[in-house]
């Protein structure tokens, strides 16, 4: 009736709505389930996904242990979200970019970033341990939801530049969806048809605040239609479906199909960080319940049943994990302190007179102390 508004097709609009139940390819007992329109990753991919989860889990356990020993300033574990982290990271194409949060250490490791570099932020050595351009990975983002806009901007830039082999994946939590930036990012992405995929890991909590106090929506995936993009609801503990759906969304983005919002239903098995006391706000029984849906175990059962994993392979995998953990422990023993002069190095392209003054003063101070 308004000649100026885009008339919309009801069918097309309805297609943007999520399914009633989260999509699954492998159920909690490790059994293959039917999921029309979504393909099970290849055997090779399934094995690779499993391997990355086992290594990711081992990395996460090691990082938690290092934190208890005082080696890290803080560590937000992603245990329980292994399938999201790994399924998403392994879906990235060679030119794609990833915009993670503080929670996504496992995804970064699965993405091929050196575990020690991943931990630079959390160890307190620097703000970002890896090379953003070389890894095509934004810094681990702490101000919630702000990374969504960076992702959209980069995706739009790629499109404007004519690089149709680039898509962008941004990770965020259920809590972050409440921030204004998430909304602005979703809206702008849809208007620009930017090649970006939003993967919300709904782990049930924003620190202590349960999802029921975060949103009254049927699901977060129901937000998609309000931006004119598909909203997809998936089982975030099924690495097969995470990988399959994220891959399809990235493909679609690269092909010019625009952005996708994916909500992966999962659970944070550990406290928010080592500094948090989760007993204040959730029942042990709830955690126990989710342990029965452990994503790594699910994948293991599925692969064993499918004949893609045997005792030897499992042993080898475990050994690989141990080796990696040992390497990480060694790396973390490096007591080298960051150079105080580095404080002034990258505030501006060239230090200002003011910074030169302060650098000289600090150098004098340190010389006196020495």
């Amino acid at each position: 009736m308004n000649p100026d508004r885009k008339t919309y097709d009801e069918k097309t609009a309805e297609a943007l709505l999520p399914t009633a139940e989260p999509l699954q390819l492998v159920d909690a007992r490790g059994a293959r389930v039917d999921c029309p329109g979504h393909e099970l990753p290849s055997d090779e991919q399934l094995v690779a996904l499993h391997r990355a989860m086992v290594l990711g889990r081992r990395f996460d356990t090691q990082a938690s242990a290092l934190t208890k020993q005082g080696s890290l300033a803080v560590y937000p574990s992603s245990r329980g979200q292994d399938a999201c982290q790994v399924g998403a990271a392994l879906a990235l194409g060679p030119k794609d970019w990833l915009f993670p949060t503080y929670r996504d250490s496992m995804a970064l490791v699965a993405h091929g970033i050196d575990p020690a570099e991943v931990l630079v932020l959390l160890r307190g050595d620097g703000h970002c341990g890896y090379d953003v351009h070389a890894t095509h990975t934004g810094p681990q983002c702490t101000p919630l939801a702000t990374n969504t806009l960076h992702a959209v901007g980069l995706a739009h830039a790629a499109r404007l530049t004519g690089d149709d082999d680039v898509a962008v994946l941004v990770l965020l939590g259920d809590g972050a969806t409440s921030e204004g930036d998430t909304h602005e990012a979703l809206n702008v992405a849809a208007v620009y048809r930017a090649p970006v995929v939003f993967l919300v890991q709904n782990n049930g909590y924003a620190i202590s605040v349960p999802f029921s106090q975060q949103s009254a929506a049927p699901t977060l995936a129901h937000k998609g239609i309000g931006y004119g993009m598909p909203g997809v609801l998936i089982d975030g503990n099924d690495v097969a479906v995470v990988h399959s759906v994220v891959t399809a969304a990235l493909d679609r983005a690269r092909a010019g199909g625009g952005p996708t919002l994916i909500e992966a239903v999962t659970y944070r098995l550990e406290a928010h960080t080592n500094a948090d006391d989760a007993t204040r706000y959730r029942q042990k029984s709830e955690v126990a319940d989710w342990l029965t849906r452990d994503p790594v175990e699910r994948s293991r059962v599925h692969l064993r049943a499918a004949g893609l994993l045997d005792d030897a392979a499992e042993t080898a995998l475990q050994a690989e994990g141990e080796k990696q953990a040992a390497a990480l422990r060694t790396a973390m023993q490096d007591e080298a302190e960051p150079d105080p002069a580095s404080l002034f190095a990258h505030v501006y392209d060239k230090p200002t007179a003011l910074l030169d003054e302060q650098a000289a003063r600090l150098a004098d101070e340190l010389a006196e102390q020495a």
Partner: protein
Amino acid sequence: MTTATRTPSMTMAQALNTALRDALADDPSVLVFGEDVGPLGGVFRVTDGLQEQFGDTRVFDTPLAESAIVGTAIGMAMYGLRPVVEMQFDAFAYPAFEQVVSHLAKLRNRTRGGVSLPIVVRIPYGGGIGGVEHHSDSSEAYYTATPGLTVVSPGTPQDAYTLLRQAIACPDPVIFLEPKRRYWGKGAVDVADTGPGMDRAVIRREGASATILAYGPMVATALEAAELGVAEGYDLEVVDLRSLSPFDDETVSASVRKTGRAVVVHEAASFGGYGAEVAARVTERCFHHLEAPVARVTGLDVPYPPPKLEEHFLPNPERILDAVANLQWEREDRA
């Protein structure tokens, strides 16, 4: 001061918690809300036990949205309630900046006094706790540069209690900056001690050589410097500003006129920092009493560094004493 109300030893976090508890008990229009302030009791436990005691309509968790926290507080205050809201960390108050600057600070003025906003925005601020990036900003200059806001920061557990009660009672919006590195510092707290006005500075240590002007996290550091300074022959006066805006010119000018020298200390970067205002107004008022320009001892002019470098960033007693030593004691004319 009765001994009955005196609790000899309370951390600043406990003092704040007690202030909130007492305010909630005394005035049914007081509400406490923010991220994780309910069952968790806040990431620094400042709201510990409050929801349990007062119920989840008076103390509640919000969705994760700081602009919403401040913006809804404004609407609630318009309806007659007195919200006390928490921003989880300094840098996470920035999403609320538009609501703070364009509405919270201005609504009384914009409505010619029709709407008053008795809202307290509690912000744990500053560094020194080994926090990763965005968890240690000293953001006071953004608020003190905004007419219409009242900005206070306690330096002791007693002031944490007294100032927070006064801020909650205040008919104007108050930005309440909590020095997070001092949350665990203990001190005597007398809940019956109403203290001087919320807008007054106090002299924490009398001295004759020079005046150290500090607030929030740096009060303890300044006092430490003053103690160390004795051995170096300085008798330093330490003024705790308490109220950053408005500014207590009377107390500060009197001290600086007496000593003839002043150092202002804060964790924030120097350029455009709050110390510039302090230096400028002290100079305006005490120019002919000053033996040397007001010195500034501040954080470095860089983004707050990672934990392993923060000791180099932050002011410390040694840097304060260095600045004192440079206050032209020989009166050579060297500019």
